[in-house]
């Protein structure tokens, strides 16, 4: 799951060159802006067949690849 997420983020950011570790802060570093997070969420919903309610779109759930992965697992 984490690999898929990382790969998507890299693809979205158009380059393997961006090295993303699973605990990297995606948000406050500006790596992902709000638009990117929304697109990522759309991807996650489709890919892992989950629904992310708007009020769960909060920092701690999306701060890093591992946070996202934990969050998704909790939804299943």
């Amino acid at each position, binding site marked *: 799951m984490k690999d898929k997420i990382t790969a998507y983020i890299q693809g*979205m*950011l*158009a*380059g393997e060159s*961006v090295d993303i570790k699973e605990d990297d802060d995606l*948000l*406050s570093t*500006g*790596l992902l*802006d*709000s*638009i*990117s*997070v*929304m*697109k990522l*969420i*759309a991807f996650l919903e489709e890919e892992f067949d989950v629904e992310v309610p*708007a*009020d769960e*779109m*909060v*920092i701690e759930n*999306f701060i890093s690849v591992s946070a996202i992965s934990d969050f998704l697992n909790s939804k299943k």
Partner: protein
Amino acid sequence: MISDKETQNTSSNKFPLTKSQESIWAGQQISGDHPLYNMAHTFALYGPIIPATFQKAFDKLIQHFDVLRYVFGTHPNGEPYQEILDEYHYEISVVDFSEKENKDSLIKELIDEKTGRNLDLSKPPFESFLIKMNEVEFIWFLNIHHIITDVTSIQLIYDKMSEYYHQLNQGDEIEEETKSSFASYIYFEQSSLKKDPPEKSVQHWNKLVRNQHTKTKLYGQDIKKSGSESVRVKVDLDVEVLKELNRLVNQPPFRSLNPDLSYYMLCSTFLVAYIHKITNDKIITIGSPSLNRQLPEFRNVAGLFIELLPFQVEVDPYDSLLTLYPKVRAAIFDFLKYSNPGSPNSEVSRKIGVVINYIPNKFSSFGSIPVNMNWIHPNHIDPSHVLRLQVNNFNDEDISIFMDINTSVFADHQVKQAPVHFQSLVSNLLTDQNKETGAIDILTSNEKDTLLKKCSSIQSELPRQKNILDLFRQAVIEYPSEYAIYGDEWQINYKTLDEKSNQLANHLTSQKIGKGDQVLIRMKRSPEFIIGVLATLKSGACYIPVPIDYPIKRLEMILLDVSPKLILSDKKHLFANSVPGYSQIQINLNEWEFDAIPNEFNSIGIPNNDPAYIMYTSGSTGKPKGVVISHGSLYNYVHSAYDYYFHSNGKIHAPLFTSIGFDLTITSLYLPLVSGGSIQVFEDDDSGHDLSILKVVENKKVNFIKLTPSHAKLISDIHLSHSNISTIILGGENLDSKLTQKLFQSFGKNIKIYNEYGPTEATVGCIVKDIKPDGLNKQSVPIGKPFAGAKAIILDDFNNLTPIGVPGELYVSGPGLANGYWNNEELSQKSFTKIDSQKDETYYKTGDLVRINDDFDFEYLGRIDQQLKIGGIRMEKEELESVLKQYNGIKDAVIHHFTPKKDHYQAPEQYCTKCGMPSNYPNIEYDEDGVCNYCQSFETYQKNVSQYFKSLEELQQLLKSASATSPCKYDCMMLLSGGKDSSYALAKLVDMGLNVLAYTLDNGYISDDAKRNIKTVVVNLGVDHMYDTTPHMNEIFVDSLKRFSNVCNGCFKTLYTLSTKKALELGVPVIVTGLSRGQFFETRLTEELFRKRQFEVADIDQTILDARKAYHRIPDAVSKYLDVSMFESDDIFKKIQFVDFYRFCDVNLGEMFSYLDKRLNWVRPKDTGRSTNCLINDLGIYIHRRERGYHNYAFPYSWDVRMGHKDKKEAIEELDDSINPEEMKSLLAEIGYPVENEEDQPQKQLVAYYISDKPVKSEKLKNYIAQFIPQSALPAKFIHTAEFPLNSNGKIDFRMLSHESKAFQIENEKYIAPENEIEEAIAEIWQEVMQKDSISMVTPFLELGGNSLLAIRIISRINENLYLSLKVTSIFENDTIRKLSKVIEVKIEELMRANDQ
């Protein structure tokens, strides 16, 4: 990533503009020199600045950011381009104010001047300089055109400048780094645009456009006139409110991915709620820049990246912060999710009027020097933007909010109020997160005071110690011998009027009629009516005026409701025995019965609150409601009107020409009588078309008229400057400016025209506008200001006063208010209410939607309940209408919103007294004796018809001679359905000694009884019999139902086709049909055939034969499923003759039945419910009645009666079928005809009717309206019509309109008008025969529902009118009016040439 190839392709430095750049470029072109796209900033630098180092840093800056070297130009074809200069040097000048005294004002002056100057796009469009305040304080001014920058870029440029200056200042080298290349983004966008955007994203933006209300009117202001001038005003939020805001961004449910996003979404929520409050709109669309820097490589690139995109929220007035925030959040998440570059269509951004700009820039120190940034507003904004909310978050938890307000749209007072309203709304929402938006009162108490002042009567309340009779009495004393009434027969002076009404009043008193009693007056407009009114009032009773053209049902409802003690009528309109139980007095000046009674009347004291009249108006429930008006209210209105319109001075001569049951007429009735003037009586016209207005304006005496705008339209084109009319009051309907202008033209500029508004419940008029000829710049004329002591306020759904400009419901109070509704306490309570905020006064809830405009005039916007609520959008009918009226060539337009009927059947109200033709048959008319138009015209050609029919001997001869030449053993084939007609015919043929083959088509639905009959008949007669069938009957039924709304046509054609084929195989020379004479007229014969001047039976036979040829060659289900190849050549029609038995046999029904019974044991079928023999026939009847509104047998039966083969009573009885809809539905399902679901409530439909010289294509109108109106609110149909029929109150009668225009309806898309006289003539004939009011020149005959019978009728008429001899088939060969006209043109030319020679 960008490939090398792409880079190489543009060796030139010229690039196209990006989409966002294009829209800014276009905006700048339109606005000319206005600096609307200047992004000007000042950075106050609190430390020493070395100008040389600053210059060096700036040079580096220009090298780093390519956008600072962009220049713009246009290709010869007008396309804009941008070009990157390799090098560009910009000199940073230093303005030294260190020695100056008044620094602040000098700085402001300089900065305003620079910011207000448009940047030249042919040079790199930016300007920058330093201002030296003193040695340790400088101001850096940087102004960059939006076309090369955005908010993020400003931050990037600042940060870089700060970095460079700091490094240079420290003596460091500036390291080489990747340059900021906007050019690479241009490539990126172009390659993105080539890809199709994701489907979901396209759907999202399209849906948004559909719902977008383009004419969002903030404070009700029209945005059409918008320019770019704007001001920036600060929203003063309390410290406490800001604290709460800062707290909430980190609290659920408001916290989100980061605090900035939460600030942004919260402020957006405030804005959505605010726009809702000041527009009343439910769907709010807000534009916001999408940052659009998704690739990390663009994060540090300066340039114009942002795209302005909308998000859309549906607000409910019951939404609180807690319920609205999630809606806004969802909308913004969608907005973020779908903002792919280039995916939204450009329409999305174009319609944005309100923008939120959230700016989270952080300007930390400049190197080591502290800084203070200021964004300077250029006093212009994008002209399409009306309001922009700037939310600056420059340092954490230091939110400041500004409004950029487009001053070409907002009035001055709104510029002042807007930030106050916003501030008040925000603090309310934050203080109580559960408070409903609708319930929040955003007005300040000052504003309310002003509003209430504006809402009070411009006239002070008049003394009320008198009543209307006192005023009349005074006129009698002053002008006893002057004429008060001019009637058709009688002219009556004041003294006589007083005396006559006294006599009648005495009589009423003697009949025990007085206080507390009701007298219904049902009369024509006449002197007697006026006498009746005065007498009733004098007696102390109140009157109920009912015009003579009132529908009887309605009258009965009123009688039931009010139970009057007496009915006053005139001689002609005395009730017959229809309303027993009421005493009735008729008054007639020619036979005045009261002369014996004293002509003095001892007036009784009448308290103000006693009812004077009860006026019935239509109620929404369909039951009329009686509005009880007191003497006090009546006196108040009449006295105030005389005072307001005439300064209580001069004699008023008014026409009494509008309905007495309409309260508008009160003005014309009483103003003359209290002023010593006269009433000119124009009697009701019995014809129903009341055109007395045309006589009114020619009347020399009349100096004043009161009428509805619809009425006024009738005279607006007449030149009337010679008229004596000096004052016109218009009322009762919305008044448009066009009409008013025309009236000023007609009557000349000196005419006084007033627009008077008032519900019946507030006694005629309570708001009035004195219209000036030069003040008519709006679509509709405002209704003005309250008068006659009235107070008018506008409330929203939560009973808050709406801000000035914002629409809401009108409530009125004052001395004109009715006592209530007669006999309806519940409705009275509901409509006449007290409002908490307005102390103890009672207000009438008008149901009218109004607003106050910038002149503090009330504007009428429509009925609240007539607001079209489509897809959540509130839309005024009037708005749609006014948009339509502005279309070139459209003279007038109305919108009708209604629920279409599925079932068009209406039970007949009458039947022709001769033939029994029911009144629901299209275009049927009856004369005084109840005889229909068919019977009437039949008389004129009856002689010819009789020539068509022959004797049985002739038939015998015909059949014998045909079989003589035939080798076949059968002399003929008889089509036997098993019904009475064909059974009788078969027997008669056998009686003649013929060898007959009986042939039956089994369509799968022949009843068992009928089959039994068939068997009995053929056995009894000893003839050969055969059944034939096809597996495709169901397809044929469906096709027939679709084409003709019946099953018979399809069945008959199948029968003829199959039997012809069989006869051909067997060599049978003649096929005999058992069609009744009525059926001849239904299927073959037409009036036209017999109406000819030179009548020849042979001609008819030839015409019918031609028609048959065409009939068999029409492509339909029969030709698709059956073998019709034999009809291709004409031979078949020679080989096999068709003969109608009943052309040769004249027999009446009784004789037939007795014969059938005795000779054949034929039994009338019981299982089909009537004398037909087929179960599916019911289905045809059912569908025909639903879709066409009448019985498909009505026409043939009427001919059977006319031919003497059926009697009228029987025909009428047979038309009265009771059909079980459930059975029909399963039958429909069985044959495969689409069954509609009854449970589906039909959608309300929006239909636009318009008047213009030529019809306009629907498509064009749709596209035009779509510019102003959301797509979901577009009318479904545009109907061109000749006029708008009026009802007796002078208002538009939609029932009539839809009826009349049905004929006028056009298939707009295809409509092509006639181009020459021949086409016109032919079109007229087609239209008459096809019963359509307009047929396009190029629509094929069959598509119009043409068949051979209609072909015969059309060709016969053409031949008759143009002296031609076209064959019926020519209409199939040349199947449009245009083609047929060409042929005719050639024919006529040939004929003329022949004549010449």
